[in-house]
């Protein structure tokens, strides 16, 4: 479970996150929705420990991320918005590298990566160097290496950005699968239909502040609009 309270973060004079609070519970999919530049990525980066907030708290399974970064990072699997790979390593070597960095045993790394390769349907590319991989193939490698340590919490920063239909489907299936396993999934997106389809809970962020929180129905009710997209636009304009 991820808990964020009254988060604030400024870069110089620019306030990226002004006041964000949210909870991503186990077994639920939480969507972070907002226009470009609303502070979604900054919020996620604070949660996964690469940025330090100015004020507010962020915890993962009750562990304070700022105080115990490494402990917190062990409990998170993250797909950040950088999807860089090492062109001279194979897909499998990427997954092993991250497993080793997490300090997993050799057997565990091998067994778990085999499982992920099967789950993500990567058998054909697992032992090829990643140079020349398609965007979808790269995304699969990134997903697999993020989940090698079987984290209880998964954070995905715009996971379907630029993906083809088939890979987008795979990602959606995986999110559904993770939810079934009781994992807390938090993902950001600016795509309305995706969020409404996958999420149990939506947090709408505009200009670094939470504009609305709740289920799809609750959001629609709050905006007084039956269409979620219209509701979103209304909420954004209201801020």
């Amino acid at each position, binding site marked *: 479970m991820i808990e964020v309270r009254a988060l604030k973060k400024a870069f110089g004079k620019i306030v990226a996150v002004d006041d964000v609070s949210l909870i991503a519970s186990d077994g639920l999919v939480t969507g972070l929705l907002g226009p470009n530049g609303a502070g979604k990525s900054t919020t996620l980066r604070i949660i996964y420990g690469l940025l330090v907030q100015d004020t507010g708290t962020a915890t993962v399974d009750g562990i304070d991320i700022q105080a115990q970064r490494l402990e917190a990072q062990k409990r998170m699997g993250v797909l950040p918005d950088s999807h860089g790979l090492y062109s001279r390593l194979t897909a499998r070597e990427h997954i092993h590298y991250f497993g080793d960095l997490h300090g997993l045993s050799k057997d565990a790394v091998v067994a778990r990566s085999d499982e992920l390769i099967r789950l993500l349907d990567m058998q054909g590319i697992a032992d090829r160097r990643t140079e020349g991989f398609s965007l979808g193939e790269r995304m699969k490698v990134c997903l697999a290496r*993020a989940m090698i340590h079987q984290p209880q919490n998964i954070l995905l920063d715009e996971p379907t950005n630029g993906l083809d239909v088939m890979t987008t489907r795979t990602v959606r299936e995986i999110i559904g699968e993770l939810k079934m396993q009781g994992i807390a999934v938090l993902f950001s997106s600016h795509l309305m239909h995706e969020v409404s389809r996958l999420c149990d809970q939506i947090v709408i962020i505009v200009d670094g502040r939470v504009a609305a929180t709740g289920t799809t129905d609750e959001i629609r009710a709050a905006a007084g609009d039956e269409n979620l997209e219209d509701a979103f636009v209304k909420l954004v304009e209201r801020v």
Partner: protein
Amino acid sequence: MHAIAVVLAKEFKDGRRDRRALMSAFLFPLLAPVLVYFLLTTIIELRGSDEATTIPVVGAEHAPGLVQWLQERHVVIEEFSGDPQQAVRDQDVELVLIIPEDYQHRLKDFESVPLALVQDGSRTDARQSVSTVRDLLRSFNNEIASLRLVARGVSPQLMQVIAVQDQDVASRQERTATALNFIPLYIILAAFVSGMGLAVDTTAGERERKSLEPLLLNPVHRHHIVLGKWLAASIFSAFGMLLTLLLCILAMLQVPLDEIGMDFSITWQQVLLMFLGMAPLALLASSLQMLLGMFAKSFKDAQSYIGLLNFLPVLPMFYTMFNPVATQDWMFALPIFGQHILLVSVLGGKTVPVIAYFLSASTSLLISIAVALATAKFMERESILAN
């Protein structure tokens, strides 16, 4: 600590697969023996050629006195037959001295004897020989003229208003030493060249291909990541440098150095001590390259900064070239400079106190650790992720 080994193993594997970086890293050491061999054989040839001057002479039999005088000055007189002008024009010989038949006769009558020196003024490579011969003839002339004045009771010094004395500062030994300055430079440069690809790829490269953020998401201390990368780059650097050192030593043992009055020999213990004294230079070079690599915004940026770093090994060479100072023990403690004088001394056949090897090693090691820690500190900054 486990993470250091994991990062090291990955970067090492990645580096080994980078054919282009590998090529440029190891072409450098492999060229070392070729360079050393040509440098030293050239010196030996130069040295050999100015030992004996040979003068092709037409009509040597007409001037036995002059011939004998020249021979006493280690000049080899070669009987020349054929067309002197044509031979010089064809570059068969550099010059020809023509002695007239009436040489003795004119000498006796105190007449001036015309000696023709056939030469090609456009040939710069022959200039040295021509001027040597001209100087010799001039001093022969002065000697005879002085004797004539003395015979008449006049002091020859009346003829000498001034006396120019050439004092060539560069002795032959020193010329050799200057050449020997280049070999240490090459060896030290190898440390900077061999690990560079990996040092840049694991820092600026990691940022540029956007793989730094995913890497930093792992529950690993930043300084462990930096240490792993640093050690990987240092292994490449050390391997390249020590290979260069070894190949240079082997090449020097092949060249007949005794012909230029140098005796070079080295024991296995000395080689091992050299390795010990030199190895931390690899750590130092890699740590500096990584710090700049982290600082740079892109791979290209990093390469231009790091290219400037390669001037560091050149500095001690220039310094010692223009300020020849007596080596003192504390100087071995200066990073890069210490290794430079260590190499100059050992390759020059001097014995160096064992402490010098340890001094060279320890200061470079300490500084490199400080630089690596600074790199790790730099990596802690949030702005490291900004593009």
